[in-house]
């Protein structure tokens, strides 16, 4: 059963994506998108239902040498990237692709037989199933959201010929590849899917074909290719040292001492750092924000960039307790603190989200580097909660942007009046990124408890959390700002947009409420591979199981309190009559300008009231922090390699 699920979850989206290229009718395409999304969600739920640790060997099922096929496809893919590099006159892309193609060809041809003997090709466990659930559920919802979004987007661009077939082709190709990436057990397969996601990311960033988007897409491509080179180096080294390319063999076969594979794992971590846009590779993710918003939501926050952290979390048993693990944790925590600080200085909503994404990925990597059960648990929980909340936030920003024509946070002042639904959803999404008892904060809480034995990492995490509070709070403040309105209007949204926002909101809330279930069901089984003496601090976690009590913190009462508060909203709103409304205090010079609040300035001119948020650019801007942060993180990465030799 599991093997069929694996086949469906990888091949089905790819087949759908080919259909989009063939069938050009919008109606058929949209219905296929919705149907395919439903199938994908059901498949992923099937994984959850048949959950269990399992290794699946598809070798025999299809009767074809799958390893060979993947190798051929890999060469084709790299050849295409070289073609792209030549066509775009980008020498660095060509060189980096060649730097992958030549060693790969040498490696595959030299060790052909040994590679073909490698056994189980797919491996299922809590982590990969969680990733499949995220990719399939969030990814499908975002694909459905794109129906409404891309329609309006193309109307706005005034395209003569719709480019949606290509868009949905790449999106579904990506979903298939991403499922393959997290399910694959063979590192070479993983590498293939890794490169496919890189290419998808390139195509989607360049989708609007403006000068800026092509430039940013090129940068994203070469940075990710650089990571690909590191990945390949890691694979070859692992093969050289252990004679195998299976992840499960590496982690569970206790015959391999972890000291032996530290260097290759360091290379894999390097690849993960580029994919997850950790400092100093953050620039490509920020550039990727020119892509249509569903792309940012899908690839550049909730799924593709998670591939990097997935890799680090996957190898966390190797990292735990080593110097390499400490350096990885340090680099991740450093990224978390610095990018959270830079996010304070940003007023572009998508850039804030991008920085926050990088920061959270850094936190996940920090947890994975610590490697204790609590830390890995925190990392996996963060992957889940960050994916749902950040996906939701991006979709909200996209919806707002299409309505008001700006993605600047300052322009979102009073958005409640125009778009109450989206603004409320966005505010709840932002709160779920920030405050208890939502999942992100609970995982951050676990992270702090886990980092307590690594003071340097801990300090960075604590400082980063404080910065996080600043930029989220002032943004939520803008979203919720409103002066008195008699009747809350109902905004017009495309049905797919409204429904996906609603469903994602429900998922955000449900996931946070079900954190104990998620933990016990998916995360705890993950710890079998971690040996006893490497556990560094596991107090809070031991109490996490059981009757809804995490640590010693009663979880559900907080939800009851918040629920009661939410229930009081209609009562509060109803109780207030229009006669009680007063304008804000302006020293008695207040006035009303077309329903907005203003004041009389000199010579009695009526001036609208305006207030810009604090951005503290003198301290936290990219210019002041960016260079030094990149330098320090580059040094950290060099040290990371040095300690792993």
């Amino acid at each position, binding site marked *: 059963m599991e093997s069929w699920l694996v086949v469906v979850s990888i091949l089905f989206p790819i087949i759908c994506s080919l259909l989009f290229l063939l069938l050009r009718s919008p109606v058929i395409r949209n219905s296929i998108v919705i149907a395919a999304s439903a199938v994908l969600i059901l498949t992923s739920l099937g994984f959850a239902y048949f959950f269990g640790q399992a290794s699946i060997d598809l070798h025999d099922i299809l009767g074809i040498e799958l390893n060979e096929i993947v190798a051929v496809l890999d060469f084709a893919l790299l050849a295409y990237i070289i073609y792209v590099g030549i066509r775009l006159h980008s020498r660095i892309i060509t060189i980096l692709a060649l730097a992958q193609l030549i060693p790969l060809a040498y490696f595959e041809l030299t060790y052909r037989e040994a590679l073909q003997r490698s056994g189980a090709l797919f491996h299922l466990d809590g982590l990969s199933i969680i990733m499949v659930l995220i990719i399939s559920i969030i990814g499908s919802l975002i694909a459905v959201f794109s129906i409404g979004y891309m329609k309006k987007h193309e109307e706005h661009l005034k395209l003569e010929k719709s480019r949606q077939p290509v868009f949905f082709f790449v999106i579904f190709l990506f979903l298939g590849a991403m499922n393959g990436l997290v399910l694959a057990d063979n590192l070479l397969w993983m590498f293939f899917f890794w490169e496919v996601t890189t290419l998808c990311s390139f195509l989607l960033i360049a989708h609007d074909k403006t000068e800026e988007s092509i430039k940013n897409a090129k940068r994203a491509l070469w940075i990710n290719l650089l990571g690909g080179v590191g990945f390949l180096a890691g694979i070859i080294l692992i093969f050289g040292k252990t004679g195998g390319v299976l992840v499960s063999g590496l982690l569970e076969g206790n015959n391999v001492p972890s000291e032996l594979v530290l260097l290759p794992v360091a290379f894999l971590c390097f690849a993960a750092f580029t994919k997850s846009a950790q400092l100093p590779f953050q620039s490509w993710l920020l550039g990727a924000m020119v892509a249509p918003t569903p792309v940012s939501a899908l690839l550049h926050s909730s799924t593709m960039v998670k591939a990097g952290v997935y890799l680090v979390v996957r190898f966390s048993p190797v990292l735990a307790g080593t110097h390499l693990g400490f350096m990885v944790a340090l680099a991740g925590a450093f990224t978390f603190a610095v990018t959270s600080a830079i996010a304070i200085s940003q007023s572009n909503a998508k850039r804030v989200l991008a920085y926050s994404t990088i920061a959270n990925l850094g936190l996940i990597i920090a947890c994975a580097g610590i490697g204790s059960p609590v830390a890995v648990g925190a990392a996996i929980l963060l992957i889940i909660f960050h994916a749902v909340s950040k996906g939701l936030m991006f979709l909200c920003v996209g919806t707002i942007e299409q309505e008001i024509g700006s993605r600047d946070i300052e322009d979102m002042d009073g958005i409640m009046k125009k778009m109450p639904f989206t603004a409320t959803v966005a505010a709840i999404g932002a709160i779920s990124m920030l405050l208890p008892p939502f999942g992100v904060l609970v995982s951050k809480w676990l992270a702090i408890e886990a980092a307590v034995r690594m003071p340097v990492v801990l300090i960075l995490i604590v400082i980063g959390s404080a910065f996080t509070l600043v930029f989220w709070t002032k943004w939520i403040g803008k979203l919720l700002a409103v002066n008195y309105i008699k009747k809350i209007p109902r905004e017009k949204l495309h049905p797919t947009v409204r429904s996906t926002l609603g469903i994602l909101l429900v998922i955000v809330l449900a996931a946070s409420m079900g954190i104990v279930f998620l933990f016990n069901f998916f995360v705890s089984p993950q710890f079998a591979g971690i040996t006893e003496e490497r556990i560094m601090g596991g107090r809070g976690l031991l109490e996490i199981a059981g009757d809804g009590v995490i640590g010693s913190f009663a979880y559900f009462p907080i939800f009851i309190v918040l629920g009661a508060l939410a229930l009081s909203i209609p009562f509060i709103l109803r109780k207030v009559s229009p006669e009680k409304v*007063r*304008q804000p*205090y302006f*020293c*008695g*010079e*207040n006035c009303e300008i077309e329903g907005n609040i203003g004041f009389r300035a000199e010579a009695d001119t009526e001036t609208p009231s305006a207030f810009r948020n604090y951005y503290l650019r003198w301290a936290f801007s990219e210019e002041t922090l960016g260079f030094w942060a990149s330098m320090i993180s580059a040094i950290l990465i060099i040290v990371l390699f040095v300690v792993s030799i």
Partner: protein
Amino acid sequence: MGIINKSRVKSPWVVHFDCGSCNACDIEILACLTPIYDVERFGIVNVGNPKHADVLVVSGAVNNRNKRVLKNVYDQMPDPKAVVAVGACAATGGVFKECYNVLEGVDKVIPVDVYVPGCCPKPEAIIDGIIKAVEKMNQRIDSEKKEKKE
């Protein structure tokens, strides 16, 4: 309602609005805050915001230019509220009464509860005026309630 009425008398928060007085009354009002008079004994606090205030203390001769501001400040105070006009100018326009731009007293713009006469009044008188205004406010609330019942 007993405890709330009692609390009102015990905690009148004051916002001071100066309609262009000669500053003599203002100095006397501020003198109330000093250790000699110490209005905080009566729970009187000088707040800078009409939204927090119970008593509006007005000094100076209100004129056509600032009556709008006075009205706005008064409107922004939550009920129940009281107004104390401090000094001759606030009560009638005082020596400026005949001026082309001066209105004849604060009560032309907003309802006044207590007039504290003098040019300028003593701090004791001002404190007395504020307390009287609050008591008057309470009486007004009680009588309004009785009317409602009937």
